[in-house]
């Protein structure tokens, strides 16, 4: 809603103010400058701190911390886990991304209700906690290169299915993920669009989320990033932690192989 108001105001401003004045700097340079000014002092840090606390704090019906949660590299191993997710987990028999895996741990270790968490809107209650946890866990892998495992057959199927989702046009506007993210050097409005069919570079695309969104002052996890892409694509609603989102994340994550993680980033 913040976005709405500001967008409306911004439109008015553009109509009124922008007609004149050629800036000596290019628009791209000016936007780069703006982004650089924001990089120092990313409010994502506030969420990182909350996530670390949630990981170590005893909570839930079982009064347990998440310190024994297995994110794929063994119980309690946090560093490096982020850049290898989604991956296959034998104990659930599924490919899981970071957030759905966290929900599994919150259910199994802490006794919280996973289905309830999955239904909770982003930014509220336990869902806000999942986002904070994901933010901290991502931060613990900052600078590490993405290297998703593809040895389990389930992981390879997830990649192939994810590819099909990536290229799936639909909705009222015929948009697929590839409509915006299938080529290099394109923008939507002034925002650069990474080509996500390959490694788009360090700290770009899959390697940038979770990210703090300046436009609404919210911390956005990868699940929410994909959710809102689908909203803007005019698609129906993708369920939190659904197989479709996990498969799509697997496709993006495998393509990002070698890209160094910059998450949690700060975004427009």
């Amino acid at each position, binding site marked *: *809603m913040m976005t709405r*108001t500001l967008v409306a105001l911004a439109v008015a401003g553009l109509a009124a103010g922008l007609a004149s004045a050629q800036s000596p700097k290019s628009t791209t340079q000016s936007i780069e400058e703006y982004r650089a000014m924001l990089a*120092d*002092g990313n*409010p994502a*840090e*506030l969420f990182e*701190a909350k996530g670390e606390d949630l990981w170590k704090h005893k909570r839930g019906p079982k009064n347990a911390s998440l310190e024994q949660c297995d994110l794929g590299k063994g119980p309690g191993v946090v560093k490096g886990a982020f850049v290898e997710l989604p991956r296959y987990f034998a104990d659930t028999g599924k490919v899981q991304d970071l957030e759905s895996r966290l929900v599994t741990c919150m259910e199994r270790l802490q006794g919280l209700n996973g289905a309830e968490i999955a239904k909770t809107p982003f930014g509220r209650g336990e869902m806000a906690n999942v986002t904070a946890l994901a933010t901290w866990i991502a931060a613990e892998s900052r600078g590490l290169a993405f290297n998703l495992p593809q040895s389990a057959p389930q992981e390879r199927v997830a990649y192939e299915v994810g590819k099909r989702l990536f290229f799936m046009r639909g909705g009222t506007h015929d948009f697929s993920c590839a409509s915006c993210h299938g080529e290099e050097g394109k923008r939507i409005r002034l925002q650069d669009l990474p080509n996500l069919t390959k490694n788009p570079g360090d700290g770009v695309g899959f390697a940038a989320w979770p990210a703090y969104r300046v436009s609404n*002052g919210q911390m956005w996890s990868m699940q929410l990033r994909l959710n809102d892409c689908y909203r803007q694509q005019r698609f129906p609603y993708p369920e939190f932690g659904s197989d479709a989102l996990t498969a799509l994340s697997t496709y993006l994550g495998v393509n990002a192989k070698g890209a160094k993680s910059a998450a949690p980033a700060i975004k427009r």
Partner: protein
Amino acid sequence: MADPMRIRAQAQGSGAVVRVLMSHEMETGQRKDAAGKTIPAWHITDVTASHNGKQVLAAEWGPAVAKNPFLQFNVKGAKAGDKIAVTWKDNKGDTRTDEVTVS
């Protein structure tokens, strides 16, 4: 209770650079909710900072300071090991103080 701040204080030259992130909605009082009702203003009004217990900074803020505010300032003569504390107060009377050691 409000979430903690993130404060970094680094000795640099003859003082310390202090960077603060505060967790606050900074609601302007200009926005409307889905039902068309104005969301009341809720923002930090006063910020103070102290160096080893002595106040060095006072500021007044309005609702136009961005959500989850960022503040940077330089404390003269602060050195590694010194304490920097920051306090904010909002228009609902909520307040929060956090302290760090200069590194």
